[in-house]
């Protein structure tokens, strides 16, 4: 009953004209960002965040959520029509979506992606409604030891999901944690690594770093390696968007399975929408009686990852809202937004700001519906956007990044910092150091350090405090296993082969 009352309250907020407008704007902008290669959801949210200082936080977060799941929809269009994923979360869609387009079924591929995304997205919102409040209630029991364990586990899971070289993921995490220590220490008031520069006493602002490391760095990377593909020239009428009976039968269970995988991967810290779509695709291929069809235009190969990425983009809000722990770069940027508006996400958010939480959750029903309509009627418009020259888009990103960085503290020092972090992000990407761990560590760094110190103070310096409490012990064991993942995998492989070969350092 409580759930229905809360939902009713949420709809009374999200259905106000102004919030519908922000939701529509977010979905539209997200869809555009998804279509354009070279700019992702975290970049878009980071660039817009400083411009929303004066907005009502509920309206702003509804818009950002719209961007987040709008991106997951938008990336599909380029994946299907030009074999270039607009977003990393739609990489798997390219494999079969483009093949379907080559066979004249581009309309069906786009339709199944939209329908799958909508069904899985709606299903994910329903689960989020039930799951997030329960998680928040559970998290009320968390103390410093549990929060430190949770943060450590999130960093550890990044080494599992973070790419081919776990050692570089760890370095990236350390850099993020180090950047978070710069400025006045909140416990003792001692300045750290500020070297007498007054602007550094408050530490690096997260938004400045994000504008550089996502916005500007993405500009340099996109100039160097432009993602260009050949657009399939195919006339698409409304009739081409209909699925055949066989196509629907083949894809319906793939959508359900993709939605379930997406939901659960999304709520795992560091899981993310790309991992969700990847796992859903692999799972579907493994379950199929004809795996050889995958990669040759199997409609399940489009339905499952698309359902998964949308479900994950929605369930990713569960750890953010209930625990204050972001699961992905985009939700990490949103966490910075919450802090900017003076709101602390976590277990008490459901009690202190129910209007924001339920307004946001209910807006996802509206946003998903808006995106369904947009993707049926506005595909030609989004295809046209692909023709915008990259130089213009690039200038737009630089303008937003510069203004965004300046807005944080109204000083030019931050603009130069943004440029510096842009160069750092560019070099890191070239040397294959992942950016996401740095960002997550930066945003969680203060929480992790304060929790660590508080837990050690409470236990009179005994590290066993992290292992004697069951929840924190669980997180710590998960973190240790995650960090040992490369070694465990090597041992397992060696065991299977009979004779082990030494691991290549850094290989996953």
């Amino acid at each position: 009953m409580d759930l229905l009352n809360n939902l009713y309250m949420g709809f009374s907020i999200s259905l106000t004209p102004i919030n519908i407008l922000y939701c529509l704007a977010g979905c539209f902008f997200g869809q555009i960002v998804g279509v354009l290669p070279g700019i992702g959801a975290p970049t878009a949210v980071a660039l817009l965040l400083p411009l929303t200082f004066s907005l009502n936080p509920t309206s702003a977060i509804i818009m950002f959520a719209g961007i987040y799941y709008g991106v997951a929809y938008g990336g599909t269009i380029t994946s299907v029509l030009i074999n270039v994923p607009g977003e990393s979360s739609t990489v798997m869609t390219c494999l079969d979506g483009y093949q379907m387009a080559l066979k004249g079924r581009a309309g069906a591929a786009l339709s199944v992606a939209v329908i799958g995304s909508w069904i899985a997205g709606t299903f994910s919102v329903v689960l989020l409604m039930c799951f997030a409040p329960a998680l928040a209630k559970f998290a009320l029991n968390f103390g410093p030891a549990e929060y430190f364990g949770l943060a450590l586990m999130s960093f550890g899971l990044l080494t599992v999901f973070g790419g081919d070289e776990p050692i570089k993921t760890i370095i990236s995490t350390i850099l993020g944690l180090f950047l978070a220590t710069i400025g006045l220490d909140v416990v003792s008031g001692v300045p750290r690594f500020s070297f007498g520069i007054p602007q550094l006493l408050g530490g690096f602002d997260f938004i400045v770093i994000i504008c550089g490391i996502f916005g500007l760095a993405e500009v340099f990377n996109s100039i160097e390696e432009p993602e260009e593909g050949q657009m399939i020239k195919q006339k698409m009428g409304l009739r081409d968007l209909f699925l055949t009976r066989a196509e629907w039968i083949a894809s319906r269970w793939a959508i359900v399975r993709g939605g379930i995988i997406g939901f659960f991967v999304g709520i795992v810290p560091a899981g993310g929408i790309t991992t969700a779509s990847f796992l859903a695709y692999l799972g579907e291929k493994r379950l199929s009686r004809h795996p050889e069809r995958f990669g040759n235009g199997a409609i399940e190969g489009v339905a499952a990852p698309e359902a998964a990425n949308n479900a994950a983009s929605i369930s990713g809000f569960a750890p953010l809202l209930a625990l204050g722990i972001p699961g992905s770069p985009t939700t990490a940027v949103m966490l910075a937004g919450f802090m900017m508006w003076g709101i602390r996400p976590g277990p008490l958010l459901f009690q202190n700001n129910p209007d924001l939480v339920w307004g946001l959750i209910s807006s996802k029903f509206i946003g998903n519906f808006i995106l369904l309509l947009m993707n049926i009627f506005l595909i030609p418009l989004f295809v046209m956007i692909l023709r915008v020259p990259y130089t213009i888009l690039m200038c737009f990103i630089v303008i937003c990044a510069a203004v965004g960085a300046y807005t944080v503290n109204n000083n030019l020092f931050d603009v130069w910092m943004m440029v510096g972090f842009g160069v750092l992000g560019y070099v890191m990407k070239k040397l294959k150091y992942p950016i996401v761990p740095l960002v997550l560590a930066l945003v969680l760094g203060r929480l992790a350090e304060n929790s660590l110190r508080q837990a050690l103070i409470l236990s009179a310096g005994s590290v066993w405090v992290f292992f004697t409490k069951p929840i924190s012990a669980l997180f710590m064991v998960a973190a240790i296993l995650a960090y040992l993942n490369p070694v465990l995998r090597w041992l397992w492989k060696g065991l299977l082969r009979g004779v082990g070969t030494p691991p290549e350092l850094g290989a996953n």
Partner: protein
Amino acid sequence: MGAVFLKEKEMRLAELTGGIVLLLLGVAIFFFSLELPYMSEYGPGPGFLPRWLSLALVGCSVAVLVGLLRKQKKDESFLKPRTREGVKVLGLIIINFLFLPVLGFSVVLALFTGMTMRAMGRHSWVLCGLTALGVAIGIHLIFIQWLTIPLPEGIVGW
């Protein structure tokens, strides 16, 4: 074959430089963290985490450097054919941003847009000029007038 060797050498050099920079950073953080109290009256002090982070960074960067010796060949290069274009844009950003205190945001970002479109997109002078003008007006109207962001206006007063 020769090209692959050169690419590999170049990438290895870049990774080696990256590893050494990280190692030096780790050592520097360690020494600077020595100036901060490791323990305070009640527990870990402000130097506690940085010291452990620096040690971890040193350890990981050594692992990266050792790993470079054993790494298999990869057909990748650090410098790409279009790297020069990226550096050009960085140069334009730095040159234009130097004038931010003097000319203000609207004018500088408009100049940056015009120059970048001309240098990167090979658009006509007229189009570049018109877009730059549009950017200046857009920034003034959207950021300064509508969103009331107090962007520096410079000597132009705009």
